[in-house]
């Protein structure tokens, strides 16, 4: 009896409902699904764009000494892309509508920065990879906030990929990214 009374009091106490996020299981599941959908879509687009950037750079600098370095970084991005495609199938996420745009824009950015020379290409790499690193960190935070246990696998994948991207960032710095503009 006391339980019914207390429950009824709480149903009427709308202030409580505003103060505490009481989501039902069903709504929570929907929110998690939407979050995963968004993360996988954005990351897939990001890896695709990164791959296109490297391909653009290779189109200009493919025959120079920095060719193999860029090729290796592109291969790693390809690996990431395949993993996100696998996740996309697993979670039935949709790809981004802007795929054709990233296709062209990525290649243009890569080729354009490579036309500034090897330093330009490396500077582009450093800039892009640092932004991507922060972005992965934001997503990891979002997933941790949502449900670290449920997303264990995905968190591990994102952390690994973030470390790869930061490695690319450091590679870019090693190869004279900061010397861009000095003739």
């Amino acid at each position, binding site marked *: 009896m*006391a*339980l019914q009374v*207390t*429950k009824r*009091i*709480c*149903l009427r*106490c709308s*202030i*409580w*409902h505003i103060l*505490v*996020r*009481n*989501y*039902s*299981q*069903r*709504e*929570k599941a929907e929110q998690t699904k939407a979050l995963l959908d968004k993360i996988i879509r954005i990351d*897939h687009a990001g890896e695709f764009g990164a791959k296109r950037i490297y391909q653009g750079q290779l189109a200009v600098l493919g*025959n120079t000494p920095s060719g193999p370095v860029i090729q290796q970084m592109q291969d790693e991005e390809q690996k990431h892309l395949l993993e996100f*495609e696998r996740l*996309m*199938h697993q979670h*039935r996420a*949709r*790809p981004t*509508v802007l*795929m*054709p745009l990233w296709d062209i824009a990525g290649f243009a950015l890569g080729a354009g920065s490579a036309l500034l020379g090897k330093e330009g290409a490396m500077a582009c790499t450093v800039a892009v990879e640092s932004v991507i690193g922060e972005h992965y960190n934001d997503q990891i935070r979002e997933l941790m906030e949502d449900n670290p246990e449920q997303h264990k696998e995905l968190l591990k994948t994102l952390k690994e990929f973030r470390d790869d991207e930061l490695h690319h960032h450091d590679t870019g710095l090693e190869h004279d990214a900061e010397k861009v503009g000095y003739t």
Partner: protein
Amino acid sequence: MCQKAESQAGGSEAGDHVSDGEEMEYETRLRILRSSMAFVHQHGWTVDTLAAGAEVEGLPGVAHGLFPRGGVELIYHFYTDCNKQLAMQLAERVAREKESEQTNTPGKSKITPFIRDAVEARLRMIIPYIDRWPQAMGILALPPNAPQALKNLGDLTDEIWYYTGDTSTDFNWYTKRATLGVVYKTTEVFMMQDKSDDYQNTWDFLDRRMGDITRVGKLVRNGQEMTSVLGEACKGFTIIGRNILGANSGAK
């Protein structure tokens, strides 16, 4: 005071606790929607139908206020319910086909009949309410309702393509679903005025539309091949240009 009462009611952790109020409302809405379907022939897709459904559930007629957008919510419910049923049927069919066949990869020839049968199955679900479905289609076309209606159509086409084993991860994902959406919509409209026996004319219409898709698909593929050949040609011209300008003298 409320905090203590809530914890007495059985412990609450933000995010894990089933909100009694919200779940109750959701379940009540579901009950009313399900009961209202029986009254669609009488009152159409309107607030009166919802009121009648509420009364069957033992609630006052004004409980239709749970549905601020009115009759269109009943249409959405019916639409999404049919989509869920279709998903179950398609899952069963895929499971059956996997058991019965040796190879795992469906040949392209299997996808078109699969999609055609899926569209037919889904359209047949409308037949019990076909006397009132034109009204529903009209309501769904209204600007406030159109976005959700489009989303429902998108979900429907996504379900069908998913069960064909579609694994596209680029813009094809959208073109496939868009073309199927057009086929479904046009067949639906055709069905509304079809008076033939068991809607045979509609299924023939559907076959012709599926034939259209296949033809357009071939056209697109040819177009893509043409684009890649043109791309190679452009690269060739660029190399010629650079040769002429002497820019290739250092490279291999």
